């Protein structure tokens, strides 16, 4: 009798238990002298995830990575770092099951490529024959010909090649977590884009957790399963690329990722599920949200690609409308950007307009034109704080 009760309970508890996070930070802080680089940080990374730490210089993302690697010690104030559910705070870097790729590659200059890659294997007392095979496989994995590159010295390689060797060296020891500290920062644009795709493919092949630090938001959006946006030592928002880009929760995130236009005002009245927000001579509508009452201060972000430029009098019915004057039309190749000065506030807003070929079908607007900027109320991102 009891057995038949136990089994379903066991089954349900097994199903309900979430997988152990590959990496977990619980209230971790790091202070350097009088600066708090990381402030009570908490986050979880799922196994096999491509997780990015994104933010401007000095936001604490590299410090966070180094705390995870064991290259820095967290403040002793009760915070904990866990890998696969086990606390690692007292473990030295060489005792943790991870490896790292550095921004400037950190290849050992006095060792050949093959010996660089073999370094980690030697530390693990892997026998020589197996070392040779694994080194060869690792180099092949990063698309470097072992015969051709094995005996070269790092000084003879280009930046991209060095980065691949660094990757091979980190991967050959088969870590469960790979840390990457702005690895593509010193590489030129075209090669960078190619290597981004290679990294993504690599993660799919290997299935290990990648933790990636970058200040390039486009790179983070391209590569990641989830992104943690950081500012001043704190995580400001975590989510998938779409969530971060399309639903930024604060002005900081809205501005750091892509471009945003910001509008603010006071909530005036509600009608048909839309709140009217107004300021000075400006009025626009947003969908009703919990937490807005008459008189609330509201700030909204609108991305340039959600705006449209219309001639005065030609506006679609339900949309928000803001009269403005064209200050400049900027040619960006794929798109054009119309920089317009809002008549009511004097501030500039940017609109991204697809480029249909300026030689065949040029844009109708030029500096000085009177226009109306329009967008749908639903395309407004209500932000968490006031911003003026």
């Amino acid at each position, binding site marked *: 009798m009891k057995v038949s009760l136990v089994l379903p309970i066991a089954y349900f508890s097994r199903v309900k238990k979430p997988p152990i996070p590959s990496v977990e930070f619980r209230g971790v802080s790091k202070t350097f002298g009088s600066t708090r680089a990381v402030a009570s940080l908490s986050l979880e990374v799922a196994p096999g995830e491509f997780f990015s730490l994104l933010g401007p210089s000095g936001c604490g993302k590299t410090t966070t990575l180094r705390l995870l690697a*064991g*290259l820095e010690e967290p403040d002793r104030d009760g915070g904990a770092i866990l890998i696969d559910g086990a606390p690692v705070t007292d473990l030295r*870097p*060489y005792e943790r099951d*991870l490896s*790292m790729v550095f921004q*400037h590659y950190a290849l050992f200059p006095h060792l050949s490529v093959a010996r660089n890659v073999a*370094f980690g294997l030697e530390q693990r007392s892997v026998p020589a024959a197996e070392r040779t095979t694994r080194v060869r496989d690792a180099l092949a994995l990063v698309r470097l010909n072992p015969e051709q590159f094995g005996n070269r010295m790092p000084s003879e390689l280009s930046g991209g090649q060095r980065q691949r060797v660094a990757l091979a060296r*980190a991967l050959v020891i088969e870590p469960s977590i790979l840390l990457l500290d702005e690895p593509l920062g010193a590489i030129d644009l075209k090669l960078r884009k190619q290597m981004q795709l290679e990294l993504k493919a690599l993660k799919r092949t290997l299935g290990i957790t990648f933790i990636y630090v970058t200040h390039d938001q486009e790179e983070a959006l391209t590569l990641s399963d989830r992104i943690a946006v950081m500012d001043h030592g704190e995580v400001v928002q975590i989510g998938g690329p779409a969530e971060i880009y399309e639903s930024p929760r604060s002005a900081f995130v809205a501005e750091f990722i892509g471009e945003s236009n910001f509008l603010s005002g006071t909530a005036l009245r509600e009608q048909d599920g839309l709140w009217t927000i107004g300021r000075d001579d400006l009025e626009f509508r947003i969908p009703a949200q919990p937490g807005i009452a008459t008189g609330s201060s509201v700030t909204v972000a609108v991305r340039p690609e959600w705006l449209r430029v219309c001639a005065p009098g030609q506006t679609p019915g339900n949309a928000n409308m803001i009269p403005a004057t064209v200050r400049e039309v900027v040619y960006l190749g794929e798109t054009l950007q119309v920089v317009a000065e809002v008549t009511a506030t004097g501030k500039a807003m940017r609109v991204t307009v697809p480029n249909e070929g300026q030689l065949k079908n040029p844009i109708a607007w030029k500096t000085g034109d009177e226009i109306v900027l329009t967008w749908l109320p639903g395309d407004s991102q209500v932000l968490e704080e006031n911003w003026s």
Partner: protein
Amino acid sequence: MTGRLPRWLGVVAGSVFLFLHLPILILVAFSFNASRFSAGWNGFTLDWYRAMTRRPDILRGLYLSLEIGLTSAVISTVLGTALALALHRYRFRGRATLESMMYVPLVTPEIVVGISLLALFAALNISLGVGTILIAHVAFSISFVTVIIGARLAGMDRSLEEAALTLGADEFTTLVRVTIPQLLPGIVAGALLAFTLSFDDYVITSFVTGSGTSTLPVVIYGMVRRTIEPTVNAVSAVVLGMTTLLIYVADWISRRGAK
């Protein structure tokens, strides 16, 4: 730098160069002179070198200087490297004080160093001999080594060591397999400098040496004071040859390391 060198500047520089090297070259040249009184050239001879090998005091001095020099170089380099690592890698209380203290030997006149050590040994009733010479040589060499290696450490890329740590190497393995290979040119330069300082030292050695022990510089000093025999030239030439060789070795090594 732009432009050509003004004529007069080249002349001055050239003369100074000559001034620096001519006396030594002449000295070496005359070590082959068959005349005893250096009044004129009397023909080529190796007599003085042969005489040198028949002088037990010179040979003993040479052997002793080599022995002390090598030992001092090894000890100073090990201690100096460790000190440089401690000063440049870590923050700790009293670091600035230690660093200043380390600079003191560099600016203390040799005579003061020699005398103070003599005073110490006398106060502690330690008899003077090879041991006290060695102690003194290491004492003034450490700082030189530390400065040279410290300069190299300061310019070293730390991420190399961090990479080694993340790849599974503990601190000792990292030191041996990553840090020291990077520091090697500095270590070699420091060791060679320590050897040369020890091998050539007269002032400090003269104060802390016992009556029975004479390093080569002490022997040379005695010879220079006493007589005019060209054997001194021969000994000098040998010493010069040794140091020149060392310099070339040091230079060659540092050029390999720079790649």
